[in-house]
């Protein structure tokens, strides 16, 4: 996993609620056996119409919006457990997703791939959407050490929660798999006394 590097970026607004992972990456694009290349099909059926033409109405196709931050309506990433959703967002270039609520599995998958999910209150989310609407070039800063999401000019300074262990992994780019492998001794000990009925 890549380290999470603090960033300053404009943001792309997607004010829709309950965006499920089938929208983020439809099942028919899950046939690959590697992690790369999913960005191409991110939000596939919203970005393109059925004839395969670009849907100019969709925000990712609107050149005035760009950046590494996706701001979305509540309950982002619900539905299927496919980690391909996190890979697609990351591959497309997003490093942060902001919402007032994330689905559990998505949140874990994002954190395991260096994509930072930031939960803000519904009021703050509304405020962020308004800022972007007023000026799509609004820059936001994210600092992981201080756990802040801010926009100094407009006085937005939001502190967000993150589990300390996950924070450490993101900061160091540390892989939980290597960590678990390093715990083998205690796992083997546990197994010796554990019975599966």
């Amino acid at each position: 996993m890549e380290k999470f590097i603090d960033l300053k970026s404009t943001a792309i607004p997607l004010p829709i609620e309950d965006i499920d992972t089938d929208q983020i990456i439809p099942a028919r694009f899950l046939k690959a056996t590697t992690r790369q290349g999913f960005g191409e099909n991110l939000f596939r059926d919203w970005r393109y119409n059925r004839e395969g033409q670009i849907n100019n109405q969709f925000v990712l196709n609107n050149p005035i919006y760009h950046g590494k931050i996706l701001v979305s309506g509540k309950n982002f990433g619900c539905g299927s457990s496919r980690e391909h959703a996190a890979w697609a967002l990351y591959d497309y270039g997003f490093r942060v997703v902001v919402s007032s609520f994330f689905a559990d599995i998505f949140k874990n998958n994002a954190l395991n791939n260096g994509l930072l999910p930031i939960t803000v209150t519904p009021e703050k989310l509304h405020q962020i959407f308004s800022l972007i609407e007023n000026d799509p070039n609004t820059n936001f800063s994210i600092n992981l050490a201080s756990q802040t999401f801010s926009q100094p000019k407009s006085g937005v300074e939001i502190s967000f929660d993150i589990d300390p262990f996950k924070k450490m992994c993101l900061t160091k780019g540390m892989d939980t798999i290597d960590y678990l492998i390093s715990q083998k001794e205690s796992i083997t000990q546990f197994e010796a006394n554990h019975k599966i009925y």
Partner: protein
Amino acid sequence: MPKTLFDKIWERHIVTMIDDNQAILYIDRHFIHEVTSPQAFNGLTKRKVGLHNVKLTTATADHNVPTINQDQPIKDPLSKKQVDALNKNCADFGIELYGLGHEKQGIVHVIGPELGLTRPGMTIVCGDSHTSTHGAFGCIAFGIGTSEVEQVMASQCIIQKKPKQMLINVNGKLSKGVSSKDVILYIISKIGVAGATGHFVEYAGDTIQSLSQEARMTVCNMSIEMGARGGLIAPDEKTISYLEGKENTPKDEEWELSKAFYQELYTEENAKFDQVYNFDATDISPMITYGTNPGMGIKIDESIPENTSNSESFKKSLNYMDLQSGKEMLGMPIDYVFIGSCTNSRIEDLREVASFVKGKQKADKVKVFIVPGSQAVEKIAIAEGIDKILIDAGFEFRQAGCSACLGMNEDKIPPGKYCVSTSNRNFEGRQGPGARTLLASPLTAAAAAITGKITDIRTILNN
């Protein structure tokens, strides 16, 4: 302090705590399938490690397999590559595989219980959100992402924070024509698609107890549809008799010990839950969804609600479905019926559909396909003559797999068409780009197949 069923299972699987929150949790059974495992295998290869405890892993091919001519090579080259990769990975790593063509193949959440691999008190994970299905046996079962699949392969453990707990009581007698699918669609319509996020749900009450073991799986299956990590039901005599004699169920003395252990698996009186809901079974009718998430469900004889909060998402959803507030669902013509998926593709579902359909004919314009959850289910259906009843009625009887539940193979619903589906998700494009899904029980789906429109099964059963 009195313990919940969840607490009891959770505690006996903690290897150690990393900090106040995160536990290293031991996993008793890991199921894998072709879609969410290849990248995990690549990771293991790169790290040059094998599986920590390969005996606790079982693989099958289900998401991406054809449901006709399974004995022939897969036509779609990408699907074939993915299924071939699973075969090769399982051979290389020494994993027991029930692949395409194997008599034990089927949807991962159908075969686990069938083979007695899913048992009370276990921790079970799989790279699929509907792993919650296994909770019907009184175990902690939840879906994980591919990085976590790799964690479990490498260490037989997963790093997890203990979730909050929710209790959902359902009491009272269900009316005729109302099934466990209606119970869970009703609960989701009340709690909402995010209402149980961060929680594990225990279902209890006399209605839940009255359900068969298979019907309980339908309830637990859809826990994820209200955001829950998983759902579980305390095991009882029905659970024990379902498991007895299954291939992997402990035998003889071990079985006696196991039964004694299972009997300890219940929530103690006054145990604390973070949230509690109580529902009355007599309020539950056959349900149908009208929108693009499973929480958008109504009683079949109700009309589509108004968009009272003027929500953009609601508007977008009805627009996609080409439906309007105030419209009645009853009598609405439909184009497709799909009976299958890990929610409703077990033998009881097929029996129920067959006993209703027997001697009837599907409506002319409707295409109906029924996909058994496993090869074992298919075999029983054939032995009981269920296949013949269905085929005589004009249904297509397919071979085991996920099929049109997620439209990854060629079983897709065409754009703009309405499909009454016994699966669990009605998301935009879930059953194919532009497909419009109406979730319902197997009986409601069968009634729609026969009449060609949304029909209240109670009016037919009562005549």
